[in-house]
């Protein structure tokens, strides 16, 4: 898409590309992130973590540290509320057993982080090492050790979805392809590590725990910290700092409760900032998985049956993402007979957390490469084959619901007629093209927006959604659109949990949808109040007053008109301030579809893979700010490319320690590894949003691995069955 082109469809603000409100602070380094935060009397915390993947804790001896110079407090699981012990508490600091390398055991606060680090070395923990498991197939093996001994097996969640009769579907199929894939554990890899500064004010009348943190959800941090520490939520105030990326991994409170306990003990604020190694070993990853996909189709290209068996690593505690992987597995296709079994499997790795369309990329690489193979067997164009089977509004998904408005066909048609799909490939036999599409259902949730009028006529916008992808700008734009003013004349800020109504987290691509609905309500209410004020000044009926382009005017009497600016000046003397709000829990989020065309080059002598050209197509509903929509499409694509090519938690034989917990060896794609990611925005409006918005943040990550694998097949004749597609593995297959 060429810069600057956008469809405004009669809108004045929506679809344009104003400079984001938070941009200046960010590019000049003024924006305050969690690690920048400082407060007088600050102490520095560090967390002692398990060196073993699975072990009983026999004893913890902190005596050597208690009187160490500069050390102010030590906490262990004993300092957490002991009644109603939960897994959530065990995740904060282990009590009897450590479940992964990196599992927190104790926290230390000291006058600087060097001393805190030294102190950790002097805490003596005795362990009894237990056998450990790292992958889902291992976890499913009945002879494997149990992660949770109170359970019969390591399966923490089983989902099963069934449509029609799978057996009959396969019997009637002319072509059946069945393949198994293994995908590695990967990390979200945001630049800013987790951090928390906590100041526990223990005064009897006014107990308050203040948390400053990098998070996708200040209200989740408040709620979960409250639960863990047995506090009423009103006793906690969470202030979200600017956030340096999250991609789903910044919901868990991790260091917050530990810093809180250390602060309570010392009476001082305590700050904890993770190292990169702690990030890899103790936060976030998204599961490695084992995926079985079987699809059957007729000679004419109609898919009759599809079966998926998905086993996902859950990490140490329940809460995995196989449900979403199962839901998305065949969601883009209209298939009569479907069977999907999904298992979350406990393993000795950090508890998995969300990562951009969590679970969907894993199943997608299976489905979309098998689809490609069937199209090849039927000698059909892979996009044509997908079009024959494309799902649409009203089609029932295997997991139950019927699709709302959905743009599979629109995305496929755009791909089919795009120059990138139709231009000839270079002569060289080491470059070829692959395609794949992907699905994400998108989420919603409660959202609150407050608006007030500045004396200069600008509109103050207060919200609770922490802003990762440019949502301050897009919500301001939606409010501006309703009021007929410029985006720059709305001043948005994200505030702490005491200053706004409940707002659910920035995840599931939900913010522009839900805060857009809330913002629309608030702006509509504000407009109504402004009209009423003008009417009351003029002594006319509000029904005869309108507001357009920032001007209020009587529809009856041309002499009656006032600009919002002038009205704002005198609000106090004409009846008092004007505020409004929008608070809602809207249902009606609609799915987003992604499609990728990727040209890949393989060095057949070394197995090295390069991405030569890449175009992403995505149905975004309505692009409020096309720059940030394109940014999401590009960002997700790059993460999908990383997942496909090199990213993995690497374990040496017989070791349970991640061998590559650094950005040097955890190989995310860098600038020289990427071509320009071309974007094609497709707008199939979501009828359940005032401006047609669908979430756009996630679908883009799901389809690059399959598109790349399909291109590699066309170059090498090898059907990849593993992610990442490392050069060494590819070379092994090429040589065979």
């Amino acid at each position, binding site marked *: 898409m060429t810069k600057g082109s956008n469809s405004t469809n009669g809108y004045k603000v929506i679809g344009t590309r104003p400079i984001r409100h938070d941009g200046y602070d960010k590019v000049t380094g003024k924006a305050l992130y969690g690690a920048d935060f400082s407060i007088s009397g600050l102490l520095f915390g560090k967390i002692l973590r398990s060196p073993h993947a699975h072990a009983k804790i026999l004893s913890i001896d902190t005596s050597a540290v208690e009187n160490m110079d500069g050390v102010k407090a030590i906490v262990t699981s004993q300092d957490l509320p002991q009644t109603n012990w939960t897994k959530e508490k065990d995740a904060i600091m282990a009590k009897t057993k450590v479940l992964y390398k990196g599992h927190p055991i104790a926290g230390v606060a000291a006058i600087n982080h060097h001393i805190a680090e030294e102190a950790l070395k002097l805490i003596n923990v005795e362990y009894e090492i237990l056998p450990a498991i790292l992958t889902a197939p291992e976890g499913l093996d009945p002879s494997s050790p149990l992660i949770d001994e109170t359970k019969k097996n390591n399966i923490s969640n089983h989902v099963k979805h069934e449509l029609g009769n799978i057996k009959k579907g396969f019997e009637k199929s002319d072509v059946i392809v069945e393949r198994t894939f293994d995908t590695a554990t990967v990390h979200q890899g945001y630049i800013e590590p987790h951090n928390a500064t906590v100041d526990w004010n223990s005064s009897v009348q006014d107990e308050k725990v203040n948390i400053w943190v990098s998070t996708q959800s200040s209200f989740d941090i408040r709620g979960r910290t409250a639960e863990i520490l047995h506090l009423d939520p009103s006793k906690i105030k969470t202030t979200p700092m600017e956030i340096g990326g999250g991609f789903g991994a910044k919901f868990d409170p991790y260091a917050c409760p530990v810093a809180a306990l250390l602060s309570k003990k010392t009476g001082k604020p305590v700050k904890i900032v993770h190292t990169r190694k702690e990030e890899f070993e103790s936060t976030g990853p998204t599961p490695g998985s084992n995926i079985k996909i079987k699809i059957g189709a007729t000679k004419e290209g109609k898919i009759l049956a599809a079966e998926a068996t998905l086993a996902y690593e859950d990490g140490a505690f329940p809460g995995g993402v196989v449900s979403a992987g199962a839901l998305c597995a065949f969601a883009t296709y209209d298939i009569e007979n479907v069977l999907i079994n999904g298992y979350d499997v406990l393993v000795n790795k950090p508890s998995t957390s969300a990562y951009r369309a969590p679970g969907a990329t894993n199943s997608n690489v299976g489905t979309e490469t098998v689809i490609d193979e069937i199209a090849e067997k039927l000698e059909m164009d892979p996009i044509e084959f997908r079009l024959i089977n494309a799902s649409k509004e009203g089609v029932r998904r295997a997991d139950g619901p019927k699709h709302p408005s959905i743009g599979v066909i629109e995305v496929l048609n755009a791909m089919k007629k795009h120059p990138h799909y139709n231009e000839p490939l270079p002569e060289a036999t080491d470059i070829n093209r692959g395609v794949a599409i992907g699905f994400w259902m998108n989420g919603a949730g409660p959202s609150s927006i407050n608006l007030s009028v500045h004396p200069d006529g600008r509109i103050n916008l207060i919200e609770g959604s922490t802003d990762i992808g440019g949502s301050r700008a897009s919500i301001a734009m939606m409010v501006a659109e309703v009021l007929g003013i410029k985006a720059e004349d709305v001043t948005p800020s994200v505030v702490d949990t005491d200053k706004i109504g409940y707002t659910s987290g920035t995840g599931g691509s939900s913010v522009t949808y839900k805060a857009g609905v809330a913002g629309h309500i608030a702006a509509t209410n504000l407009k109504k109040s402004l009209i009423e004020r003008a009417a009351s000044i003029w002594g006319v009926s509000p029904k005869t007053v309108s507001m357009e382009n920032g001007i209020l005017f009587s529809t009856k009497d041309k002499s009656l008109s006032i600009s919002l600016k002038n009205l704002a000046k005198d609000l106090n003397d004409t009846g008092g301030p004007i505020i409004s709000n929008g608070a809602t829990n809207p249902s009606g989020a609609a799915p987003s579809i992604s499609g990728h065309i990727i040209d890949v080059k393989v060095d057949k002598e070394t197995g090295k*893979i390069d991405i030569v050209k890449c175009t992403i197509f995505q149905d975004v509903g309505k692009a409020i700010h096309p720059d940030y929509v394109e940014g999401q499409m590009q960002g997700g694509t790059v993460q999908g490319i990383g997942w496909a090519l090199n990213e993995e938690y690497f374990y*040496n034989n017989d070791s349970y320690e991640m061998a590559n917990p650094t950005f040097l060896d955890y190989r995310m794609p860098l600038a020289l590894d990427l071509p320009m990611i071309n974007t094609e925005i497709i707008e199939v409006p979501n009828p359940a949003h005032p401006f047609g918005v669908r979430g756009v943040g996630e679908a883009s990550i799901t389809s690059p691995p399959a598109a790349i694998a399909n291109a590699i097949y066309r170059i090498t004749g090898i059907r990849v069955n593993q992610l990442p597609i490392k050069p060494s593995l590819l070379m092994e297959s090429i040589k065979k």
Partner: protein
Amino acid sequence: MKWIDYASPNSIKEAVALLSNKNTVARAMAGGTDLIVQLRAAPERIGNPDVVVDIKNIPELNEINLDSKGLTLGSAVPMYKIYNNESITASYPALQDSTSLVGGIQIQGRASVGGNLCNSAPSGDTIPTLIALNATCKVDGPNGSRDLKVEDFCTGPGKSVLENGEILISIHIPAPSKGSGSSYLRFIPRNEMDIAVVGVGTSISLDGDIVKSVKVALASVGPTPILVSDAEKIIGKSIEDEDTLKIAGEAAKNAATPITDMRGTIEFRKHLCDVLTRRTLKIATERARGN
């Protein structure tokens, strides 16, 4: 917490004195692109130093001198000064290959070839090139100065022949003979900022199509950089002969003693030694002919 002192001597004598002081553990620092990372991540692996001796202010260590005898390169000269010097890159193209792919532009502004050698990582990207170019180095210390071949310098991962208190002064590369060319290639799965899975440095001199001399050295496939002595089996053969390249590739494969780790398997690394040796020979040959 450990305090670390910083010293910045102006002469070799002073530096040697600081480095050989028996009461402290001192480490020399050129660009610091290895040292500072090590001090932060694992100071115990470099002996928990309590003094850092910055050697960048010592004139001899910043020397760049190219004359008819060859190139003398002070040990602290940063990479960018090498690949930006057209006289150097014309004579020693492999040195340009190596210095321009270490890290990124910021790293190249500080990192030195001397530091790369003294750090003695098996993956050091300039070391195979130095070996292929027959480089020697000059070392000074409490017991006086000595000269040795670069191929004898590294003794194990992070280990070298440097004795306590010794410092690398300079590296000397003899003038290239007529009809010679050189090349360095490394394999990484990405295109920047990575550690060599395999690196191969090659120099060749030709008389027509006939190989007069050849030197091949490998990175990342053993505890130290490895000189492939058997590559010399192609001396006297025609470089246009596919067999000639095969013999050299096979020799590299056999000389390599890699391990399997997160960066690659034994088999893959040996395979790459073969591929990259053949490729560097081709590039070096083209360059020899362009000369």
